[in-house]
């Protein structure tokens, strides 16, 4: 095997946070409410129509329902800079998880994809003796294990850690990244995708979107100006923002509010992109009290600046714009599938005649979920 481009180390000065490259992005998502598994090639095709929103420095996809053979296992996708990092990570994982499958993620050589780290995946369940003794609930334990690997094991980065889902991302145009990971071989009930102009940072494989923790993935177009305020708040709750990029902090905010605090997704959306005080003043009493409470409770989690994000989670997808709607977002429906994208052309590339197409308002989430009884 030609090893020339395998395992080429990333120069330290090009890591996230050391360079500023100001620039925008393309996002796309689709979900079949009936749980029909769709090939990833639709998402890849859609992204090619928004090629010029990207710059070849990042692309990625998240698929849900893609591992039906391991539905109850955490699927860890990990980047390694070297074999040593792999050995250290594997011994960490094996001490905590019963690993029922592990392999190098199959890839294909693609022109335009260079500097790939080693990419492995592991399917595992938490060891019963650990589950019995840890004071944490299982998901919290897994979340902290991921944060541990990403911050303590040099050269290792877990970029996907949910069940029956997976993230595939790297440096390159999204269509090339899709080809690299042989995404045509995967099918799932939901796909999200991203083409990245790195916003302010140079683009490293771990810094590409989607960002993930547990079953949550976020793709993001925009640049949030509240990054540091949000980061300071979220790091008080055990999260570590390792990549100095705004999308990572949004992912943790959603995990914190939805999984740990138990807020509903519409409420999460109203924390991240709340109505203005002038709008709250005109609301009915009960609504006014509710939004006032949310704004006061989580003032530090208000996300300012332009963004359009697509959140993927187990069984659903949520698209959300900043309240000023400073980034494009279009949504469409055809039969059992809902689409969202930065541009209408991406939707029409895979669904030429949607039944309905609309432009969601700023701060108004579009939430679609599997209908009752359809397996995740």
């Amino acid at each position, binding site marked *: 095997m030609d090893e020339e481009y395998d395992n080429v180390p990333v120069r330290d000065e090009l890591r996230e946070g050391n360079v500023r490259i100001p620039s925008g992005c393309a996002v796309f998502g689709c979900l079949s409410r009936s749980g029909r598994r769709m090939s990833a090639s639709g998402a890849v095709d859609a992204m090619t129509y928004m090629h010029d929103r990207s710059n070849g420095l990042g692309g990625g996809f998240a698929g849900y329902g893609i591992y039906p053979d391991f539905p109850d296992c955490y699927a860890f996708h990990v980047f390694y800079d070297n074999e040593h990092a792999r050995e250290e990570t594997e011994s960490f994982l094996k001490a905590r998880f019963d690993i029922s499958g592990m392999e190098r993620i199959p890839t294909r050589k693609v022109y335009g994809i260079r500097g790939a780290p080693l990419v492995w995946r592991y399917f595992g369940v938490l060891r019963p003796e650990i589950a019995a003794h840890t004071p944490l609930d299982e998901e919290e334990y897994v979340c902290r294990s991921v944060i541990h690997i990403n911050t303590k094991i040099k050269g290792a980065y877990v970029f996907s850690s949910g069940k029956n889902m997976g993230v595939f991302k790297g440096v390159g145009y999204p269509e090339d990244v899709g080809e690299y990971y042989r995404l045509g071989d995967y099918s799932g009930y939901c796909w999200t995708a991203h083409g990245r102009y790195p916003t302010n940072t140079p683009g490293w494989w771990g810094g590409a979107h989607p960002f993930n923790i547990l079953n949550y993935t976020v793709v993001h177009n925009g640049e949030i100006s509240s990054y540091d305020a949000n980061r300071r708040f979220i790091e008080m709750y055990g999260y570590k923002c390792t990549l100095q990029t705004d999308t990572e902090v949004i992912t943790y905010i959603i995990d914190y509010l939805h999984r740990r605090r138990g807020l509903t997704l519409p409420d999460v959306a109203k924390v991240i992109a709340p109505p203005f005080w*002038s709008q709250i003043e005109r609301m009915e009493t009960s609504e006014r009290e509710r939004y006032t409470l949310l704004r006061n409770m989580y003032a530090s989690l208000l996300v300012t600046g332009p963004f359009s994000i697509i959140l993927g989670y187990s069984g659903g997808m949520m698209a959300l714009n900043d309240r*000023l709607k400073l980034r494009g977002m279009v949504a469409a429906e055809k039969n059992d599938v809902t689409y969202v994208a930065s541009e209408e052309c991406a939707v029409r590339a895979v669904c030429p005649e949607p039944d309905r*197409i609309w*432009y969601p308002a700023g701060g108004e989430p579009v939430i679609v979920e599997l209908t009752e009884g359809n397996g995740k």
Partner: protein
Amino acid sequence: MRIDAKGMHFAALNGLIRDSADGEIVIDNVLGQRYIAAGAAGRHIVVRGVPGNALGAYMNGCRVDVYGSAQDAVGDTMNDGVIVVHGSCGDTAGYAMRGGRIFIEGDAGYRVGIHMKEYGSAVPCIVVGGRAGSYLGEYQAGGRIVVLGIGSEGRQCVGDFTSTGMHGGKIYVRGGCIPADLPRQTEVRAVTDKSELAPLVRDFCTCFGFDADALLADDYFMLVPSTAYIYKTLYVNRPD
């Protein structure tokens, strides 16, 4: 000239248009190609499909007919000409528009006519058949915006924060649903004289086949900057 744009990159497509000597150009299978008719003059361009962002940006006197929806920034800083969209459009249609006219059959996204301006006889006009998103006419400095709200009768057909920072021009809205959150520098007036409005509505109806007399028989209100707050008295022409 007829072009099949299927799978064509925007640079190649726009190169073909620019290099063509034809006055009449029909482009089929358009899907997401940006900058069509940007800076162009003296052509009639028919677009079949969904053109990409910045359709007719800086356009200087073409007629563009789109049979499909348009994306963001239609007619950005457009100087002259006519854009007719047989569908809806994304955000910021007519951004900083300086002249010419844009007709949208369906809905328009956020910030229609932001920073639109006028000078002398160059008075840009935008007519939206359906609803318009928030921040309609934000920082508007001149020109005319008409929102007809066809299909939204009895409901507000413009979004929140309409006319924020408006300091010139006029916004006409059909129906009687006046937004509750208008900024204090805008004044609402009932439209009693439709002589300026009527030709725009008639041209819109000629494009899309609506009944102009019926539309014009309805009530309209108009938003204009109130003279007490307009910026043109900020540094000069100050009342003593």
